[in-house]
């Protein structure tokens, strides 16, 4: 049985009233982006559904990719037939025979839905006609309307009828890009990619900012961050990554600030730079992977003191989560293995052992008087390198040819 379509259902989107069309269009665009490598696909948007026509392509890799796209409630493989009862009967029988051979199903039911009301046969009658035919043409099969092994759904729409069975859960959430842009502080650890994922889940588009301190941090640490950003692109859109050179600022702090306030001041610098980048890029909020009380910089006192330097909303999706909960999500979204690669990031170098867990705003402000804050921030922002990370493997031609 060759399935020629994938039927995609939205969840929350249907509730979005006048915005619905905007949300659906964004979702369609995200799907096209994620499935760019499959050039043979055609997409159709009908009321409350998106239908992908496979045109002979294998459905498995496509469904794998779909399962990560936010804004999809569920999806099913579908057979498209004419609005003709005989065709529906044959298609239903084909599905049943295949499932009988592959999965050994014993019971089935037909669930018809007549979304296109001018079709002359109502859903009850359709159930009976199709079910009766399937039953008469197969052995060792019975109907069970309560707990069937196989539920074949028949949806009669204006242009055609779609037969589906089995629903694959989608990623839920809202389509990425419907909620504005957020700047994710991406360190390379376990938490920040998860924070990025959860922010995207509610429809925000991400840009990411990463601070690196060559030569104290190495190329691999940078590659790791690029890889993490790339993993996040599979949730629906490309990500712009800003790489900020941070060595000079760290050395400056190391020389001029008391050791127990260096971490706090460093975080304030990071936040100021992030705010500047956000302003330049029309970004409305910052996201971070902070979890309350996890480390010295994430105590309530630290957050309070560090947060002082910006007015932008800071989204902290993990703030109430335990580490283990975060790790579970990281594994699910396939960032965990990359995150735990042992490369030093800029937060761990130069770090004095005596960081304050209860820093005070007034002290931080006092110490900053001795620092050339504006000079260093201007310099770091000017030397920031921005790259577009896309899910499509754009490796140099030379490497590509090797495979």
């Amino acid at each position, binding site marked *: 049985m060759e399935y020629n379509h994938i039927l995609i259902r939205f969840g929350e989107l249907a509730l979005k009233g006048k915005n619905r069309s905007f949300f659906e269009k964004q979702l369609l665009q995200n799907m096209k982006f994620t499935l760019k490598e499959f050039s043979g696909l055609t997409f159709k948007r009908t009321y409350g559904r998106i239908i992908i026509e496979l045109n002979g392509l294998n459905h*498995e*890799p496509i469904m794998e990719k779909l399962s990560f796209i936010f804004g999809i409630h569920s999806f099913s493989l579908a057979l498209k037939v004419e609005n003709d009862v005989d065709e529906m009967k044959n298609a239903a029988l084909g599905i049943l025979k295949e499932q009988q051979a592959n999965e050994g199903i014993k019971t089935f039911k037909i669930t018809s839905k007549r979304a296109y009301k001018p079709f002359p046969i109502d859903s009850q009658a359709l159930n009976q006609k199709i079910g009766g035919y399937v039953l008469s043409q197969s052995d060792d099969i019975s109907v069970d309307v309560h707990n069937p092994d196989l539920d074949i759904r028949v949806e009669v729409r204006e242009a055609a009828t779609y037969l589906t069975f089995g629903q694959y859960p989608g990623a839920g959430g809202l389509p990425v890009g419907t909620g504005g842009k957020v700047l994710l502080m991406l360190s390379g650890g376990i938490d920040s990619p998860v924070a990025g994922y959860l922010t995207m889940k509610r429809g925000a588009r991400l840009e990411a900012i990463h601070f690196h301190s060559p030569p104290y941090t*190495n190329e691999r640490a940078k590659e790791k961050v690029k890889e993490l950003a790339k993993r996040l692109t599979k949730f629906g859109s490309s990500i712009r990554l800003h790489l900020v050179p941070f060595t000079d600022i760290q050395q400056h702090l190391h020389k001029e600030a008391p050791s127990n306030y260096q971490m706090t001041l460093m975080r304030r610098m990071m936040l100021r730079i992030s705010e500047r980048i956000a302003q330049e890029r029309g970004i409305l909020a910052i996201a971070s992977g902070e979890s309350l009380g996890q480390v010295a910089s994430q105590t309530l006192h630290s957050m309070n003191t560090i947060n002082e330097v910006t007015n932008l909303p800071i989204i902290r999706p993990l703030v109430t989560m335990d580490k283990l909960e975060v790790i579970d999500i990281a594994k699910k979204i396939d960032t965990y293995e990359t995150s735990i690669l042992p490369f030093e990031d800029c937060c761990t170098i130069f770090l004095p052992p005596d960081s304050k867990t209860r820093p005070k705003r007034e002290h931080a402000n006092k110490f900053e008087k001795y620092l050339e804050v504006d000079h260093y921030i201007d310099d770091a922002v000017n030397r920031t390198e921005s790259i577009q990370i896309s899910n499509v493997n754009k490796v140099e031609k030379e490497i590509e040819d*090797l*495979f």
Partner: protein
Amino acid sequence: MIYLDNSATTRPHKEVLDTYIKVSYDFFGNPSSLHTLGMEAEGLLTKARTAIASQLQVGAKEILFTSGGTEGNNLAIKGTASHKKSKGRHLITTEVEHASSYETYKELEQAGFEVTYLKVDSDGRISLEELEQSIRKETILVSIIHVNNETGTIQPIEKIGRLLSKYPQVRFHVDDVQGITKVPLNIKKAKIDLLTASAHKFHGVRGSGLLYVRDGVRLKPQIHGGVQEMQMRSGTEHVAGAVAMAKALRIEMEKAKEGRADLVKLHSKLIHTLPKIEGVTMNSPLNGVAHHIINFSVDSIKPEVLIQSLAQKKIYVSTKSACSSKLAEPSRVLLSMGKDNHAASSAIRVSLSYETTEQEIQFFIQELKKIIPTLLGVKK
């Protein structure tokens, strides 16, 4: 030259060798080195892993690079046996495995494991009922060859996988060295835990292979050292081999799309023409068989003699499997299919690739028709 011994090894594709040379020279860094050269090499290795995984429709971290089929089978079997021996010491395999599995099981018997060798029918196929009856509480592993290397018989791997999924303590290992790129097999759908493949059987270079290790399955390493390959197989990674294997696999999978139908035609020609030649009996079954392996015996002609005669015409075939063809014993595989000693000692294996042409098969048959009567005449 007409090369019909592709199940012994294949000739590497030119493009594959180009890749091998370029990677060996331009990306010679050790993937574990911290500098840029190391990083580039590591990047290539990762890309090779991802490319292979996507061809096989599995996860990238489920691909472990090995030196080939023999190591893959050894690691899968011994690695499982020593990892799970506290859970049980009973193993199941078949009488028709390749020597790299079969001898490993023999070795494990010496080490105190108990092994059930499943019998096969006259087509060389195991019975699912016998398999299920053989499973005990202390069974930890079942190894089955997908496509038999001597006869081409296909085992019902998907059905076996579904059966074994009822016994979660039993791991399922499949030797797919002969099947890969030739006979489709969906690893995930067949619920396979371990699967062996080797690059030189699909026009890659020798010395590189892969073991699919399902996510979550642990193996006791058989080679110790610098903990490469997810800590299951130490040794500086063979980056060039891995990249070349990824390329060979891609090329062969692409060729398979069209080539499978051509193989069916060539296979059909052979199985319909060969039995008409005086003295020839077919050993490969007619159904449920891979189309690139054809095994037959020629009555009262020593296989070496036939092979030498064909080689004079630059036609290359083999007796049973290349790995054991230097032993003058009858084929274990054919004997277990119920063939008599005679047939089992005089088997010839013809194995095709997607490169094999109709003209070559035509010429081979034509020569065979000339040579066999001559040799039979000498006998008389």
